[in-house]
């Protein structure tokens, strides 16, 4: 297994910026895209803040039929995949379609479509025996999110191994790990891999209200996502997608591709503890980090930047701070750590891939994006979280981590492929 996997194309659809360029502009400026929830009347909900994407499928090249049959999350995935394919410069027609696969991460699938359709077929919840004559013909595409992989494959002509990875809030990291493995084992040469979610819907807002996971800071929506700050009180629900073109390193070099980074290490572990709770010791996340570093053949000191999960819940911020110390030792205090969720919110399964996009763009620009809204650090969170403003910083290797419901703890290591000995 000597094949090495690199990122050669990047596409991003995020709150505050459709397209990788405007996304990077937002986070490098430390601007926030969180705002009062506008998709529906949220006045009866506890949390009324969201990080919404201003998305116009028509303008972004989707056909009317694509728009009709796809849930918003699938639309994000297709538009974003096309951006990454264009960015890669890869002549897809020159590659055997059987050697191109798709892996799309998503935590909650077509939640928005399901929520709206249920409302209709149940006539506002009145009918227990929902009325099938009111169902839209493409309701099956909402039933199971495999449709996301299908749509991306059909949009790009991929006929190789294609699937959705759905591991809750680590989906966006796990999809990249999964796709990289498909290339390493030789089942595909090119993978279009990333993640999408569009969960800003009454049912999602209601269920996070019920467990008080989202912030009630409704009066100050632009400053509502406050990871690592003593005043943080929950995450801001977001949406979006990031999709990459992954290729085998030698192929990418041969065609003179722009190489953003190597996917040099990945690991996932489970805490086997609680569906939503975390122990404060960060043990399993630390184990995932150690294994990802091992696979990348890097030492903790090689990590220039840590892209944190940083959701802005007390239990998360303490859990991962402990995990960094446990896995990286003293280096945890030296490496800059930041959470872009402070700016683009928490888009559940999508955010892991959006954070990988932030990581590879940090490498490309040698700039570490900041943690916005961090004025008074929680005393138990005592690392360098790059408060408020971005930092010029030589960034050749990045650790990006995620933690999610179901107990999944994942870590991806991205590094410059040049000159490293294996």
């Amino acid at each position, binding site marked *: 297994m000597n094949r090495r996997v690199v990122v050669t194309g990047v596409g991003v659809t995020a709150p505050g910026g459709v397209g990788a360029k405007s996304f990077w502009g937002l986070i490098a400026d430390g601007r926030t895209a969180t705002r009062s929830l506008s998709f529906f009347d949220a006045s009866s909900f506890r949390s009324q803040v969201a990080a919404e994407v201003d998305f116009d499928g028509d303008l972004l090249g989707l056909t009317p039929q694509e728009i009709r049959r796809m849930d918003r999350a699938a639309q994000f995935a297709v538009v974003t995949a096309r951006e990454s394919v264009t960015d890669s410069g890869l002549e897809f027609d020159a590659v055997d379609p059987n050697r191109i696969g798709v892996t799309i991460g998503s935590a909650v699938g077509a939640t928005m479509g399901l929520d709206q359709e249920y409302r209709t077929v149940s006539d506002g919840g009145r009918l227990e025996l929902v009325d099938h004559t009111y169902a839209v*013909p493409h309701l099956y595409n909402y039933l199971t999110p495999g449709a996301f992989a299908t749509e991306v494959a059909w949009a790009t002509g991929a006929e190789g191994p294609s699937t959705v*990875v759905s591991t809750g809030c680590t989906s966006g990291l796990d999809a990249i790990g999964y796709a990289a493995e498909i290339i390493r084992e030789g089942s595909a040469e090119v993978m279009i891999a990333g993640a999408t979610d569009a969960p800003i819907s009454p049912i999602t807002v209601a269920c996070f209200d019920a467990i008080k996971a989202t912030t009630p800071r409704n009066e100050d929506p632009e400053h509502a996502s406050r990871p690592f700050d003593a005043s943080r009180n929950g995450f801001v629900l977001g949406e979006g997608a990031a999709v990459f073109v992954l290729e085998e390193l030698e192929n990418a070099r041969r065609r003179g591709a722009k190489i953003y980074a190597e996917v040099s290490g990945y690991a996932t572990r489970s805490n086997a503890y609680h569906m939503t709770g975390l122990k404060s010791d960060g043990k399993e996340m630390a184990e995932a980090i150690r294994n990802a570093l091992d696979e990348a053949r890097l030492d903790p000191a090689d990590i220039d930047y840590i892209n944190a999960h940083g959701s802005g819940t007390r239990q998360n911020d303490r859990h991962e701070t402990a995990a960094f110390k446990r896995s990286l030792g003293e280096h945890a205090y030296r490496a800059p750590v930041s959470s872009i969720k402070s700016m683009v919110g928490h888009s559940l399964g999508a955010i892991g891939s959006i954070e990988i996009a932030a990581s590879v763009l940090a490498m490309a620009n040698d700039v570490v994006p900041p943690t916005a809204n961090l004025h008074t650090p929680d005393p138990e969170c005592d690392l360098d979280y790059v408060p408020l403003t971005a930092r010029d910083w030589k960034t050749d290797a990045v650790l990006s981590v995620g933690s999610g419901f179901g107990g999944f703890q994942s870590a991806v290591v991205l590094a410059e492929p040049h000159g490293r000995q294996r």
Partner: protein
Amino acid sequence: MSKTVVTGLGVAAPTGLGLSEYWDTTLAGRSGIDRISRFDASSYPARLAGEITDFTAEEYLPNRLLPQTDRMTRLALVCADWAFEDSGIVPAEMPDYEAGVITASHAGGFEFGQNELRALWSKGGQYVSAYQSFAWFYAVNSGQISIRNGLRGPSSVVVSDQAGGVDAIAQARRQIRNGTRVVISGAVDASICPWGWVAQMAGGRLSTSEKPSRAYLPFDDDACGHIVGEGGALIVLEDAEHARERGTEVYGEIAGHASTMDPRPGSGREPTLQKAIERALVDAAATPDEIGVVFADAAAVPTLDQIEAEAITKVFGPRGVPVTAPKTMTGRLYSGAGPLDLTAAFLTMRDGVIPPTIGSSRSDRYDIDLVAGEPRTAAPGAALVLSRGQGGFNSAMVVRSGY
């Protein structure tokens, strides 16, 4: 590269709870398909299903788990218990991080979601259960199985419609090759509730027949769509060395896998199932001659049956290998289907008898050797399991009896 062997099987199907009941019923050719009993389906065009009618979660699971679990999660937890018991592995005694869980899902805990959507729209957001934050989502079975059994190793969840169950097992094999000793894998799906029913009907492939014995007839001239079932299987996969060290009995080996995506309809390109079969054989270093039985996907939609029969015929020759679809007794279990067929494949190799396809009569349209009506004595040393999902997913897996 280390080999991946199967040492434990846990089954919940409309034809039986537990391995021996499932297998006895399957060999006897007794169907689990009947009129839907779970809700009043008389107003819907499709009214038959393969339901599990004798499952009482309280018998197997602690009360505290019941309010936070959908039916498919309860079934999956029990299947996982049975699979570990069958393997002789006590997960709690495994070293940390050496055992993981990788499941597939089709629609998540759809019935749980239905009930919470109803609460939301009929009463208001404050009536939505706190458990909705995880009980319906696609990752829930992996999470709950991990917690119940203390599995801290690499875990994951894949979704690729009906192909997902096989894809999950392929991903589990990757983790074993990477050094994880034990992975429990497979899938259980259950979404026979009004909301799930309406969404499934929208897929356009359900049989509207009223007669259980004539409703799901793959490869038959009267094929008219499929019947939805519930259930599936969880399978304990183990590094062959680890199994040998334990001195445990082994059902066989996961020898090869490949998956493909069909091109967009209207693109003029060929379907890709045949490529999946060929690549799975290459991955297993198997010749077509070595395969003694094919467990078909069996869509029971004429165009799809045609594609599958042609793919089989091109690889194995006309009537070159026995083909069967015991899922004619259970209905299609979505991501549970592949793991249940794999289970049947291992039992076929163990007992030297191929379970039958019931209902279907041989048709001149398809040049395949369908094992129709009665089980057939045979001694296959290797089997091929095919699983296709709506949306173009194809997955093929080769298994062997020895290793």
